[in-house]
Structure formats: C-alpha cells, structure tokens
C-alpha cells in the first residue's frame, strides 16, 4: 500500500518543531508500524536526510519505550496495543497518517518523537516500592495471598510505564500511572505498612512534576495498552484522602 505520513519533526528541546509530509510506497500489511518507520528512515538516509528519531526497544509491547500519537490516539487506533505491536494491516492504501510525540509539560520533547519521561521515575522514587532490603525476606509461602488479591495486584502491576495515559488525558494527568503502582502494592499484604504515605508522597511528586489533575474523562483507561482500569484511581484517591486526614489506609 502507499501512504502519506505527516510526522512531527523537532531538531531539539528548544526548537519550535513542525509537521512534515512524507510519501511512502509499497508498505506491506505484515509490517509493524515501527518497521514501516524503519523503511522510511532507510529511505531518508539514502537521500542524505536526517532520519526520524523515535523511541523503541523490545518491539514486543512490554518495555514501554515506544510511544507516539498516531492519528490523534496514543499508540494508534487498535485498543490495548502498543505502537510496536500495531501492524500495517490496520491501515489501507491511500491513508494519511499523522504521527506526533506525547504532548505534556512533564514530558519535554528531546527530538522528533522522543520525549523525556524521567518524571515517571521520580514519582516511583517517592514510594513506589516496598522498603525491604535484600536478605530480610521470610519464606515466600509464609504469607498466603488469595488468588483474587494476587490477580488484582498483577492487573495493576502490568503497567509498562509508556505514558500513553498522560498523552491521552486532556489535563496531562499521570493519575493512571501513579494509581497503577499504588494499587499494585495496596492489593498485597507486603504493601500495607507504607500504604498511606505511599499514596500521599507519590501524588505530591506527580503534582510537582507538572502533571495535571484527574477530572474523570477516562481517556487514560481507553488509551492504556495494558488495559489498566481507572478503578485504581478511585482506590488511590481513597488512600490519599485517608492519609491527608491523618488516618491509616
């Protein structure tokens, strides 16, 4: 198939940036979206132009490195699918495709489609863990955890930290990302000791990074390639309020 691509080009963090148009021919339906960009880039290099910078690594939908807004939707039109797992059979001959970076104050653009997501790490640093040093652990079976609890923890822990939730949110809020980690640990007995302080500290850091607030649009849940439920946001809000009132979640 032949396609027309409109891609955000920005030479550096301080450059204005603009959409540039590229035509690409003979795209196979079996290619992944990123392989289509690889082919485009090889063509650009052959013409002596600078290839499009985009983040990617595992290309299996698990590392969370790739991320781009495709036709207005983070990771593109297929639900629960990262850009690297999106395949060209989703598109048809003659389509025009708009490709842009995540847009959020807390995710500054470094070049073209590459953004800096260091803010996510700093949120985790404020409590997205269980404070247990290596060597402290008791036997793994000493504390039974019911299957529903373990499954719920895993549902939240499946977050890949890609940032699609932020890109989808009209407020650029990182509530789903933050709530996924809070919810993962709150679902398990190991996470109880620090449950209140964790919710408080992580939300405060999220605000400090310049992410917006949640106003219940649920765009995050719709865009999440791992299908993480917005219910975890409700749970985090409860833990946050309890903590703010000086209680123990």
């Amino acid at each position, binding site marked *: 198939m032949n396609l027309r691509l409109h891609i955000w080009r920005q030479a550096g963090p301080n450059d204005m940036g603009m959409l540039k148009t590229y035509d690409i021919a003979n795209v196979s339906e079996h290619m992944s979206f990123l392989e289509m960009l690889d082919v485009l880039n090889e063509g*650009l290099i*052959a013409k002596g*132009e600078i290839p499009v*910078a985009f983040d*990617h690594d595992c290309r299996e939908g698990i590392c969370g490195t790739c991320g781009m807004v495709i036709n207005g939707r983070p990771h593109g039109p297929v639900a629960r699918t990262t850009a690297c797992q999106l*395949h060209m059979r989703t598109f048809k001959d003659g389509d025009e495709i708009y490709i842009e970076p995540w847009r959020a104050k807390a995710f500054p653009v470094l070049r073209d489609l590459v953004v800096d997501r260091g803010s996510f790490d700093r949120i985790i*640093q404020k409590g997205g863990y269980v404070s247990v040093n290596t060597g402290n652990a008791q036997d793994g079976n000493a504390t039974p*955890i019911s299957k529903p609890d373990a499954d719920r923890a895993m549902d939240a822990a499946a977050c890949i930290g890609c940032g699609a939730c932020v890109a989808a949110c009209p407020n650029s809020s990182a509530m789903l990302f933050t709530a996924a980690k809070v919810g993962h*640990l709150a679902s398990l007995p190991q996470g109880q000791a620090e449950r209140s302080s964790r919710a408080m500290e992580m939300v405060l850091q999220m605000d400090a990074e310049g992410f917006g607030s949640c106003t219940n649009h649920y765009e995050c849940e719709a865009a999440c390639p791992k299908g993480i439920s917005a219910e975890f946001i409700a749970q985090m809000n409860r833990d946050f309020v309890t903590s703010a009132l000086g209680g123990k979640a």
Partner: protein
Amino acid sequence: MELNSAIPGGPIQQRWDKHRAELKLVNPANKRKFSVIVVGTGLAGASASATLAELGYNVQAFTYHDSARRAHSIAAQGGINAAKNYQNDGDSVWRLFYDTVKGGDFRARESNVYRLAQVSVNIIDQCVAQGVPFAREYGGYLSNRSFGGAQVSRTFYARGQTGQQLLLGAYQALMRQVGLGKVKLHNKQEMMDLIVIDGRARGIITRDLVTGAVRSHMADAVILATGGYGNVFYLSTNAMACNVTATYRAHKRGALFANPCYTQIHPTCIPQSGDYQSKLTLMSESLRNDGRIWVPKNKGDQRSPDQIPESDRDYYLERKYPSFGNLSPRDIASRAAKEVCDEGRGVGPGGLGVYLDFADAIRRLGEKVIADRYGNLFEMYERITGENPYKVPMRIYPAVHYTMGGLWVDYNLMSNVPGLFVLGEANFSDHGANRLGASALMQGLADGYFVIPYTIGGYFAQGGLQAVSAESPEAKAAVTEAEQKIAALLSIGGKRSPTSFHRELGKIMWDKCGMARTEAGLKEALQRIPELREEFWQNLVVPGSGTDLNQSLELGLRVADFLEFAELMCYDALQRNESCGGHFREEYQTEDGEAKRNDDDYCYVAAWEHTGVGSTPILHKESLTFENVQLATRSYK
C-alpha cells in the same frame, strides 16, 4: 596466562558457605568510602545496584535507556526456577544443580551452578517480599509450572510477564535507593570504554545520548551487567538496542571473553515475515506445557492444518524424545525443528515453520483455562500474525535468543582484570553450552542480590586501591580515543546505512555460525567478516552530528563493535571440534543426528585474549572438572 577460577575446596554443598565465611569484610562505616560503577539496569544490574547501596557503598548506575525499567530482562515471559520443592515432586537444590549442569551439556563450572541452585530459593523469598505478584493457587500459596529440561515443576511465574515483574521489583528497589540519595543514576548514557589503571578497572567512559558529551567516571570497582550479544545475528529476540559494546570494549582492554560461540536458539518464535523484519518475537517456552509440536508426515503437504488427520501428522518431539516430549531442552527442540524443515516438511510461507497446536489442550481443559494460562501470549501472537491461535495452530520457528558465552569470571564473578566484575548474561559462568528455560532470570538475580554483595567486599578488603582521578592519563586518553572513534564514524560519508551493514553481518552469522556450523562455513565467515568491516569503514553513512540525539550514530557505534566481535565468535566455533549444547558442528554428530561431545579434548572453557583488530586472538583454557555430576551423554529419550 594462568586462569585462576578461585573455586573453594571441600564438598560442593559447603563451598559457598565456607567461602562466605572466609571472605574478608568491609565494616559498615568504611563501605561508604568505596565507590562502585554498575553498567546496566536489568535484573543483574538493578539488583546489584540496589543491594550494594543498601549495604552502604556509593553506587553509580548507568543505562542507555530513558529509564532503568526498560532493560530487556523485562521481556522474559515464562518464569524463574527455584528449588523450593513446594510441589513435593522430588525437587531439591541438588536436582536443580544436576539439571542445569546436564542441560548445559557439561560445559559449565560445577561450583558456580551449585551456588546458583542454592540461592535460587532466596530469590523467590526476596521477590515476594518486594511485592512481585507471582501466580497463586486458590489457597494463597505460590503456583508453579514446568519448563524444558526438567521433570519437576519448579518454575514460578507472573502470568506471561515474569521478567517484567521481577525487573520492576529490582527497579523499585533501585528507585528507593536513588530516592534516598545512595545511588546516582545516569539515564541515557552509553558505555564507550573501560578505564584500566595499574592493571585494575577504575572507571568507564560514557557518551550522553542526548547531548553527545563524552566523559569519564571513576570508581573503585566496575560491574558490567550489560546482557548478551545475540544481536550480532541482526534478527534475534533481543531488544533493538541490545549490543556487545560494553563487554567487547572491556575485552579489548584485557578482559578474556569466554565461549563466545555458545549461543542459544530458542525453538518457539514467530517466523520471519519479510525483508523489512527488524526483530523476532519469542513465544514463551511455557506454551510447550500444553501445546503439541508437529509437522505433516509427508513432504509438501499443502492442506490446512485442520484438514490433516492425526495419521498424517508427525509429533516429532514426542516421537523422538518420549520421556521429555514437547518439553525437551531448547537446543534439542530447535535442531529438531530445523531438521524437519530441511526435510521439506516445514509449514507456512517458505516452509520455515512448525505447528504448535493447542487443540488437544483446549478440548481437555476448555478455552478459559488456556486463556488464563497463556491469554496474553495468544493475544500477542494474533496481533503480529493476524491469526487466532485458539482456532488455528501457531506457526513457530527457532530464533537466536540468548548467549551463554560472555566475559570470563572467577567464582567471585570477577574477570581477569582485577576490579572488573561481570554479572548476568554478560558473564559466561553458569549455563555451559545451553541454558535451560527460566534460568536466566534466576542467574541475573542470584548474581545481583546474593553473590556480588559478598564477593565485592572481599575485593575491597584486600586493600591496595590508590586514589584515582579523571585527570589521570589513562582516563584522558580513553576519552580522546572515544571522541576520535565517533568523529571517524561521522566523517566516512559513504552510501550505506548502519542497518544495512548490520543486516548483512547478521545473515553471514546466521548462515555460517547459527544453528549448525561447519569448518568450511566458519572459514568462509572469517574471510567475509573482515571484508565487510573494511567496507563499513569506507562506505558507511551516519547522518547528523555527534553533539545531539543521533540514533544512527548509536547504531553505527554498536555495529562497528559487532563487526569485530563476530570474528571472535567464529574463531571460537572453529576451534571447538565437537558439538555441545547450542554449538552444533555438523562434522560431529551421532548416527541419529544428536550432538556428539568430545570430553577428552574439549572439556574446557575457551577464554580468548584480544591481540588487536583483525589479528588472531589467543586461546586460554580453563579445564572443567566434574566431581559431582558424572560426564555422560545427554539423553532426553
């Protein structure tokens, strides 16, 4: 050069305990006086950084990713082995040790493997305490599944995302230490070189991938946890950025590279679909618990799989290896797939594929149970191929997955360069010539959580470390050298992109040094690789500059190292005149096509010394002794 593996004496069961008791300690107040550089933030690197910081050392951690959570450990699907014997099915530390030595085709070091099996139980406990959401039974206890090469169920898992959950556990422990100020984390920094002063590893050179700045970082010890070199084949299941640069540059600075020819070809990957293919996707080995592998009995059978009756199918693994069946080890299952495809019985486009069929399991257990066990893998398969594996059998084919070879290390995980430690896939020590499934996660975390915290203290406590500075001539020279290499690459101004060279190199390696190797093929590769390398340095084009984010330059630098390293792999494969594990030399096979080891002449670790680019490396041998597991022909029949 004398290779001292520093293996403690005494009965194997007591060696690690004895060694730990004898290792000198650094007192808590003195630990903060020692600084450690850790390169890589995968399972081995993140667990090492976090644990060393918890102990009080000053840690600087480096990753080329934008976050420490993205290392390729994250993509491991199936699980992690541990000798917990929760299933009461006869498992023990001894049995895990035995299975690993046998699975590695008797080319691993017994003492290291025994220690790995011992600490495996602590890993599970540690990860549970961190909140890793392992699968549980309804009673609340940990669940297990089976993996290839074992007859017990000892694999712990978190759906099909075990690597992700274990890595996030280690990442969170690391983030905690970063938040506490005990680890300084450097994102988007790629290691360019190792700094060696007075014969000891004292620092590294990095390139900032955003600004292009090249600078030195000094420390009292350097830990490389930088993964494997599977991407030398271009197409592999490794992530796109995985590369050999860190370990290869250390090799050029004197560290011996051990067994580079031992590469693992994973039997269950999604077949290649076109020339544009950028990587191959693994389908977890756990699928072989319930999926049955088959091809048509007859050559050129073009019927769709549901039209082929049982009598016309060949479940070749079950036929050839009745006791292990579909759960035969990876090297054996891969070669068997190649064999049936070479016979013309492969399925799918190009005949490079075999069926992995769940119809029986779905009939027996119902779709829901299968979805519960493998749902995310089935989804991934459908996304990539457009086919629904609940309805039609998956098509799979072997692909490069893991590299057992790596930098040579002693029992303390220290290389022959004092102060340079190597952990996880980057070292060679535990898997011999073939790694069993669910053992990579085990090794990465064993090294990082439970081995290096003890052995690095022993190194520091010996004393003798002088203060060093970034102004030392060695550090300054290494910075200049790195800058010159970058400038040279940018100034070639040829016609071919880094990817095109990488793809051509990968094709040579897959054809000549892949699943099956011959003397003639390897000699041909040893001719073609230097030719390709020469063309690379004359005809490469890297657009853009060295002072900003330039992904072509990153790739160009990595491919430049692959082009040198590939030669070393071929030298190693050529000298090993036997077949063992993942190394299959066609000249050395039994009548029924199984690998034929030669224990009389090749029961050693091949550790190579660099002598200059394009010059033949020097082979050093560490002989392997098997005092506890009797050398025997592996049989899974």
